[in-house]
């Protein structure tokens, strides 16, 4: 029912039409069927009774003349009535005289209970109509006819009617459905149009919308009424709207004023707190919140003294809030200097503040407003400028400034010291008085560069002091800007470098002298070396000749020399042999420099040490020496240099051994990016007195007792220095020696990597 109630009128109409149609049809169909079945029964009864009459009449002769065949034929003509189940003719003694039974029917002639006219006539039994009729001849009953007629016809008719009603119902429903669209247009059309207008009005609030009058009936009157109502609403609405707009505008205006005031206060650069007349906070802007380290919600409503605590910066005594004073005295109060605000978290902020009363239009105090600002930056700027001033004042350098016209605007003590002019004398004067007359042009050049914004650093020139002295100075000149960022002058830092310039001059002169003497020395040295090389090389030839002939002499005249002669010749041979060794060493010594042109190669020092061991095998075996070494690195160098180096050092260690068998160890370590080698022994040691001399050519500490040319350590030194290294010895007499040398930057890989 709810469903139907909420349906649109269109569907309601359709539903009503359809249901009324259906109900009418069903009822009339039912009535027709019932009436028909009643009427039909009567008609059928009459019809069958008439039929019985005819059959009975036609059977009289057959009965009268004992002719059942003819009677059966007569009954057989009843086949034309398909609903006739059976027809029977009985003799007066209730025996069957003739009968007809519908083919296929199970029916039989009903037994005739008793003879009597009370059973005659038609009656309905169950599913059949039983008609019983006497057969009389001249008023005498000569037999009885019984017809059994089934009622299928009634059911058939009912079914037929039912189907007809159903078909009509369907057709009429269709017609009703089609009609309903037309009906909708008549009834639902204006209603939904009105409903649409209503909905449109309520949705858009456009009261100028009017419903269309589509008919002159009640719906048309409804539309008219609706339109009249809308007209009234429209006029009321427009008035209301006007009033509302005016009110809104006024409200907005006051809101804007309030907002702009609040925005002004909120965005003002200073902290602002306003209170009511009792000193309770009613407004606090964001800067005040951040300075107090307190959110707005925590502040508003509190008394100002709870949130705004100030002390004197020096005495630390609590200062009365200016608001109290304002409320008491009703006037604007500025705060004393050196006030420090203590924020919620204990932070101290130096502030300036002032308080003022807020008065209503009658002049009564409504509240106060407190304005304060963080003066930390200003304080710091003040301190910085004081510090800068003291730095400037105490600087040894002259620091001064000029305007663009060159007039001095500041002059520090350094300037007074250096130039002799006091600040009093200089400020207001042109700076040109410290420029020598031949450098005035320079001043104007500098001034124009500064005017263009350029900064000039370490500009060296000569300036004049008060007493006419000329000073070498280095100037750093920077443009100075006024508060509008325009170049207004120049600041100058002037350093007196007169002494430095003089010292530099002296040094340059000394260096030049040294250079010259070095060049002379080098030339001399080269000549000497060339000479030594040539000498040692060229001397070998005559020496070989002496040796050859001395030996030839001994071989040619064996045993012919007397004792002394034999000794002399032996001395000659010894002398030439030593001479040859000496020359060979000298040649090797000089050659170390001469092989510079050859390309470097990889030199494995471990292999070099092995060679040295083989070379010295005889003396090692003889002395029982033991030579050990660390794992040594691979070098990029000339191989021919390192064999003499190690052979001389190790050979010396064996040669100058103590009573014990020599123990010699070659070690290496990396110190400060260079390789430091050590060849240590347990030999006789060297007195520190000779530690320098032993590296000189031909310098020998021992006489003939220990053979040697005096060139070995010189070769070592030369090899090491050839690679940029140093060689030295650490030793004491009788305590063994350690020969150190360094080789920078030539290791291909370190000994450790090699492992």
């Amino acid at each position, binding site marked *: 029912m709810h469903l139907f109630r909420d349906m649109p009128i269109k569907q309601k109409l359709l539903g009503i039409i359809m249901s009324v149609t259906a109900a009418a049809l069903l009822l009339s169909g039912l009535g027709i069927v019932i009436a028909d079945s009643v009427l039909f029964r009567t008609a059928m009864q009459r019809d069958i009774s008439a039929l019985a009459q005819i059959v009975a009449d036609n059977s009289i002769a*057959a009965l009268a*003349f004992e002719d059942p065949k003819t009677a059966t034929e007569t009954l057989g003509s009843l086949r034309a009535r398909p609903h006739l189940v059976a027809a029977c003719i009985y003799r007066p*003694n209730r025996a069957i005289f003739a009968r007809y039974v519908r083919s296929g029917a199970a029916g039989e002639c009903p037994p005739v209970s008793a003879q009597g006219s009370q059973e005659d006539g038609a009656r309905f039994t169950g599913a059949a109509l039983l008609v019983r009729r006497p057969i009389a001849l001249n008023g005498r009953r000569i037999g009885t006819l019984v017809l059994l007629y089934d009622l299928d016809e009634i059911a058939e008719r009912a079914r037929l009617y039912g189907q007809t009603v159903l078909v009509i119902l369907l057709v009429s429903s269709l017609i009703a459905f089609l009609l309903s669209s037309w009906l909708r247009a008549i009834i639902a059309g204006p209603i939904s149009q009105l409903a649409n207008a209503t909905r449109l009005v309520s949705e858009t609030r456009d009261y100028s919308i009017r419903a269309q009058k589509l008919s002159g009936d009640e719906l048309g009157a409804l539309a008219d009424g609706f339109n009249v109502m809308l007209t009234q609403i429209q006029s009321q609405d427009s008035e209301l709207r006007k009033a509302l707009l005016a009110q809104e505008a006024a409200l907005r205006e006051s809101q804007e004023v309030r907002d702009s005031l609040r925005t002004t206060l909120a965005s003002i650069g200073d902290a602002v707190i306003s209170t009511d007349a009792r000193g309770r906070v009613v407004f606090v802007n964001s800067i005040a919140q951040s300075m107090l380290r307190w959110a707005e919600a925590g502040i508003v409503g509190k008394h100002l003294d709870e949130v705004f605590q100030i002390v004197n910066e020096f005495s630390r005594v609590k200062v009365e809030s200016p608001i109290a004073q304002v409320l008491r005295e009703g006037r604007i109060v500025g705060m004393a200097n050196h006030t420090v605000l203590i924020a919620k978290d204990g932070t101290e902020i130096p502030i300036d503040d002032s308080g003022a009363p807020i008065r209503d239009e009658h002049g009564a105090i409504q509240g106060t407003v407190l304005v304060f600002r963080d003066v930390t930056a200003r304080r710091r700027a003040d301190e910085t400028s004081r510090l800068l001033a003291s730095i400037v004042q105490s600087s040894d350098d002259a620091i001064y400034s000029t305007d663009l016209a060159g007039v001095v605007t500041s002059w520090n003590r350094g300037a007074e010291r250096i130039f002799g002019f006091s600040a009093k004398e200089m400020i207001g004067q042109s700076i040109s008085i410290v420029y020598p007359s031949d450098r005035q042009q320079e001043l104007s050049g500098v001034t124009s560069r500064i005017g263009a914004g350029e900064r000039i650093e370490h500009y060296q020139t000569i300036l004049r002091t008060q007493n006419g002295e000329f000073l070498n100075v280095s100037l750093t000149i920077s443009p100075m800007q006024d508060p509008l960022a325009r170049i207004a002058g120049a600041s100058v830092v002037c350093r007196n470098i007169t002494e430095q310039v003089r010292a530099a001059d002296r040094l340059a002169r000394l260096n030049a002298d040294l250079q010259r003497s070095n060049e002379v020395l080098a030339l001399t040295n080269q000549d000497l070396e060339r000479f030594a090389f040539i000498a040692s090389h060229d001397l070998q030839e005559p020496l070989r000749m002496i040796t050859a002939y001395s030996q030839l002499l001994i071989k040619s005249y064996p045993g012919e020399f007397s004792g002394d002669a034999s000794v002399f010749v032996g001395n000659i041979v010894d002398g030439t042999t030593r001479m040859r060794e000496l020359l060979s060493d000298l040649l090797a010594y000089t050659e170390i420099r001469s092989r510079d042109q050859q390309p470097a190669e990889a030199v494995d020092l471990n292999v070099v040490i092995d060679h040295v061991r083989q070379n010295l095998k005889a003396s090692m075996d003889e002395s029982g020496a033991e030579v050990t070494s660390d794992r040594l690195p691979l070098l990029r160098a000339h191989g021919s240099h390192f064999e003499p180096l190690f052979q001389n050092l190790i050979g010396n260690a064996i040669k100058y051994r103590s009573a014990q068998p020599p123990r010699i160890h070659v070690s290496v370590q990396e110190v400060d990016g260079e390789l430091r080698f050590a060849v240590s022994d347990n030999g006789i040691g060297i007195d520190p007195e000779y530690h320098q001399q032993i590296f000189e050519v031909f310098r020998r500490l021992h006489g003939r007792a220990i053979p040697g040319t005096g060139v070995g350590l010189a070769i070592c030194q030369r090899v090491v220095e050839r690679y940029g290294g140093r060689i030295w010895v650490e030793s004491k007499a009788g305590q063994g020696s350690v020969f150190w040398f360094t080789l920078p930057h030539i290791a291909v890989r370190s000994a450790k990597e090699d492992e």
Partner: protein
Amino acid sequence: MNPGFRQRPCRALFAALLPAAALLVTLGSPARGDEPPLEYQVKAAFLLNFTKFVQWPPSAFADDRAPLAICIRGEDPFGNTLDEIVKGEAVNGHELVVQRMARGPVPKTCQVLFVAKSEKEVQRILADLGPGVLTVGEGEKFIQDGGIIAFVIEDRRVRFDIAQSAAAKARITISSRLMMVARSVEK
């Protein structure tokens, strides 16, 4: 009353309601006592019934109240049966009566003439008849002799043939119902 006919105490009813058993006529079976054979009891009933399916011309009766006479010519085979059957019967207000005659002309008052087997000159008898007499005889030859209705035995049952031309000649109208149950109808 015929005491031999014990099964049917009411002779009047017997004529109209012939028992089925009576239809089976045993020809030539000897009659018991003075009672005629079953065949003639049936024929008697038929005679009566014929009167109800036949219309005589008005000239056949002297007046409306004149009796309808069934005349028997020759030897009466019915005994008392016919008399008992027609007793009290009337057709269209004409009381039924039975008249017997041995010879001589048939009187004008006869509306039904039964010609018994005993008669030899059937043709002559019939030729002498005036109109308005329903003639009933036995055997098919009776029709050939000019009779209207002839009893015949068929399947041991009593049937009859009708000669319509003879009926028309006698100005007698025979109901179609009667003709329907006749064995054959000669046109």
